[in-house]
């Protein structure tokens, strides 16, 4: 049995947070889906609220401090990523974007990602398609086809979750599990020294 690492990035700010709630649901469903496919999973949660100041510092100094570095290593070293943001002003929150701004642009290449977003109204439901998907396309990550958007009303069904939302969570988790289970494990963070061309190559303009 292969053990996969799942990193979960939640940009929710309040406690309790519906963003975190959605992240938890997606995580539980993905872990279950991986088990069905014969893989175990270790889950590492990164709550961005705890790194709000670290991220602001990184913007100013150009480097990640120790706590933020640990969070970045967790995310970039994971076999799969679940990324969930609240909708602020018709897009992902600034905190969410800042985290992905400070990552090395190649560090999520080929990483399967499940996208999730929450908002107060269903009118924002396309935010995953018009804002999140292009971001992860730029990072050359592999977003699962189904993104999961949850508005306040979606949490009102029997058992706390609307049946439609529950189905979307299942489907998205299954897609992420397929992507994660189908690829080689033990991804390592990018090493900037690994492929420096030799000086002879640099002189030739390589």
């Amino acid at each position: 049995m292969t053990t996969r690492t799942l990193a979960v990035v939640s940009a929710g700010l309040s406690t309790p947070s519906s963003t975190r709630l959605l992240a938890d649901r997606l995580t539980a469903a993905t872990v279950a889906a991986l088990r069905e496919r014969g893989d175990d999973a270790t889950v590492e949660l990164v709550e961005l609220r705890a790194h709000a100041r670290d991220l602001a510092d990184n913007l100013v100094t150009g480097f990640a401090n120790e706590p933020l570095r640990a969070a970045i290593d967790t995310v970039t070293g994971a076999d799969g990523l679940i990324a969930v943001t609240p909708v602020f002003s018709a897009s992902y929150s600034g905190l969410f974007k800042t985290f992905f701004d400070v990552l090395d642009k190649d560090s999520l290449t080929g990483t399967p990602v499940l996208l999730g977003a929450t908002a107060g109204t269903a009118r924002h439901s396309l935010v995953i398609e018009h804002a999140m998907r292009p971001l992860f396309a730029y990072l050359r990550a592999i977003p699962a086809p189904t993104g999961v958007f949850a508005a306040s009303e979606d949490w009102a069904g029997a058992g706390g979750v609307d049946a439609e939302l529950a189905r979307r969570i299942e489907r998205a988790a299954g897609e992420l599990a397929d992507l994660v289970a189908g690829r080689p494990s033990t991804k390592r963070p990018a090493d900037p020294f690994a492929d420096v061309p030799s000086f002879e190559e640099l002189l030739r303009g390589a």
Partner: protein
Amino acid sequence: MQFGVFSVSDITTDPTNGRTPSEAERVQAIVTIAKKAEEVGLDVFALGEHHNPPFFSSSPTTTLAYIAAQTRTLQLSTATTLITTNDPVKIAEDYAMLQHLTGGRVDLMMGRGNTGPVYPWFGQDIRNGLPLAVENYALLRRLWDTDVVDWSGQYRTPLQGFTSTPRPLDGVPPFVWHGSIRSPQIAEQAAYYGDGFFSNHIFWPAEHTARMVEFYRRRFEHHGHGAADQAIVGLGGQVFMRKNSQDAIAEFRPYFDNAPVYGHGPSLEDFSRETPLTVGSPQQVIERTLGFREYVGDYQRQLFLIDHAGLPLKTVLEQLDILGEEVVPVLRREFAALKPAHVPDAPTHASRVAARRASLEEVPA
């Protein structure tokens, strides 16, 4: 081991009183600082090159020549010389000239520049930053090492039968360091030529510097210039000292909080933990600086940044007094005691002339 100071030549408002020095004041201040560095017993003064406000140092050789005329032992260097946007022919000429005038008290640190717009000001394109650094430096070496040069490349008009004058003093060009914060390719370039590698060190966590220097050392050995621990390494450092460390922190904090590079971000305490910045007593600076050796190995040059972020000249001169009286003598002694015999000192004109003579004598008659 060499100790000195380097200046980026920023003109910054003093956040404690809102006063901005004029260009005239800062230009004179830099001369005063350099002379003071020699007076208190430091070895090196290095000056930046910038072509936009708020910096004043567009013409380092002019300034360094003026300083050289008023000093006797101070080694003059740059931090950095823009190898990307300067014509390598002009660098070859200017620094050979400076080398003659100063009796060999010159070396240079190559850099690519800190701002994108500088490239078009000099007819270049930032997208070619790295290949420019590679080609221009290769030409600079040719111009210094070969009397008559035929050359053609991508970024400059060809040369036919060109001789750069004056020829390097005693047939030995100035020693070159390559400065870099984040590009392993520059460490590779330094290693290829057997030149020095200077890690800025002050803006990033120590582990980053450690990896860059380790890479440079490994490649220095690969390119056949000696063992990895014989590679020539320089480090930046950033200090502010008072007898009582609490006084140092209280006095420096407003300058830190408003500094152009990292101000309005992390706290002084966080940044001191994450980077080599040391604000405290002379003893704390001694201990921290000795600790650099633990992650880069025995190294040859330590430069401190002390005149930035709007600090008044009087304060900077006090910092130099503390460095010269209390810090550097101890560091000199301690580093020397730790350094194994096979690790070389920083190259000087005298040592390079001696090495050249020795290599010429080895050639059978």
